[in-house]
């Protein structure tokens, strides 16, 4: 694609590219040099500040428990949000207005609110109305917030996945006399799941990143929060930030690569419909033709 935008470089263009590269390197180097100098001035490069990361104590006391909590919250939210999202998504496509409308309202409402507000609210709610111990409360609040938000996002993913299937699938199933529930569980969902997988994995990245919110605002002891205690102990603000950022990057990069590998694989094996729902497509789908697709006469 890129080569369409410019001609194959001739001698002059090549020279210009080299000059531009040099200028760019110089600018980049200037910034890096400034970063290096200030870090050096402030003593952030001292080996004493980096040394903890080569020893087991910093990892076993701070970082690994933090990572475990991050993953725990993410995994819990995913496990709860996925079925909930599937139910909401299917409910939004129901034939019955009294099922469809409330589900739509719930999905649209929770999608429009920041996760952080949901977490704060859940935290306060648990504190006042339930007897969850204060030690467990941050985890509960984080998971509640993430579940509410991501269930509604996943509901949209599910709906988009099912709507992306060819209409003929539902119609054919209807023609051979399956019930509505049978059409959904035997025909549409199995096909839609393969379509949705990459988008679901990408949503997992969002969940992992959002757990960090709970660490700052609610005192949930996840990775970012453990970084605070770690830095307070060793006084290594910048090194600890870099290490934590790298952990997050590696974690999410693995997930994104997995998602795009999955997407490519599913796209290649065009057995079913060949339609695959990428991460970005989710929000763009509009649902003009939801109602009445699997209409009357299903139970003859």
């Amino acid at each position, binding site marked *: 694609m*890129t080569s369409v*935008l410019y001609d194959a470089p001739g001698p002059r263009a090549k020279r210009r590219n080299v000059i*531009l590269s040099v200028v760019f390197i110089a600018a980049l180097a200037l910034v890096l040099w400034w970063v290096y100098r*200030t870090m050096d001035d402030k003593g952030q490069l001292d080996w004493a500040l980096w040394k903890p990361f080569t020893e087991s104590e910093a990892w076993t006391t701070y970082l690994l428990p933090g990572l475990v909590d991050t993953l725990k919250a993410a995994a819990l939210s995913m496990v709860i949000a996925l079925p909930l999202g599937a139910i909401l998504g299917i409910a939004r496509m129901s034939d019955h207005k009294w099922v469809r409308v409330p589900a739509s309202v719930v999905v649209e409402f929770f999608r429009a609110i*920041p996760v952080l507000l949901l977490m704060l609210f859940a935290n306060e709610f648990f504190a006042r109305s339930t007897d969850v111990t204060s030690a467990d409360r941050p985890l509960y609040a984080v998971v509640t917030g993430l579940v509410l938000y991501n269930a509604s996002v996943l509901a949209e993913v599910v709906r988009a996945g099912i709507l992306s299937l060819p209409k003929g699938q539902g119609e054919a199933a209807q023609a051979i006399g399956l019930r509505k529930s049978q059409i959904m569980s035997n025909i549409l969902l199995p096909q839609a799941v393969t379509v949705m997988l990459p988008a679901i994995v990408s949503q997992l*990245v969002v969940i992992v*990143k959002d757990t960090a919110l709970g*660490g700052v605002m609610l005192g949930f002891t996840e990775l970012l929060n453990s970084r605070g205690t770690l830095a307070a102990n060793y006084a290594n*603000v910048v090194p600890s930030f870099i290490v934590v950022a790298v952990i997050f*990057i590696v974690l999410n990069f693995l997930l994104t690569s997995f998602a795009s590998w999955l997407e490519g694989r599913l796209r290649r094996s065009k057995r079913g419909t060949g339609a695959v729902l990428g991460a970005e497509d989710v929000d763009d789908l509009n649902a003009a033709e939801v109602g009445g697709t699997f209409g009357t006469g299903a139970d003859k």
Partner: protein
Amino acid sequence: MTVKLTVFSGVGSLVWGTLLAAMRVSPVPLMRWFGTAYVNIVRNIPLTVIIVFTSLGLADIFGVTMGAPDDFALQGFRLAVLGLAAYTAAFVCEALRSGINTVPVGQAEAARALGLNFTQVLSLIVLPQAFRSVIGPLANVLIALTKNTTVAAAIGVAEAALLMKEMIENEAQTLLIGAVFAFGFVVLTLPTGLFLGWLSKRLAVKR
């Protein structure tokens, strides 16, 4: 405060994101490499980490005070804008790049046949069409940004989330306060989505 944060960091991320997108398709390999690296790194760090870093790292260690060394509220606000813009720019860049890919090959080829150079091809021919086709995705980025501004509460910027946290802790009607703030966000994001959706239909390049 939420609206102000959104507007400033929205504009900032749009500019920076466009530059990044231009870098990612540019003929200079080094710039391409930098753009790709930036997007992949920033996209995978939680926004919370970035925002907290602007405060603890940039301001305290590097001494970046954004021209307001004494006024902590202003400094926090500007740092939050910086962090939000840097983070959102990665998503703007990705949206734009996919928009550039939707512009038919013939457009760029015709422009090159006319003798335009890369900057001209990109700024006169490809980007104007790309922008029109990515208004929808950009609207989603903007809505996400509106919601992400709440993260600025982490460094004490007095926007919606921090206000709600304080109010909810001091007042009795938890549910009511939560509902009001939630409603506020619905009011902010819903019209944005509807308006930009209408705009993207209106401006869509007819082919």
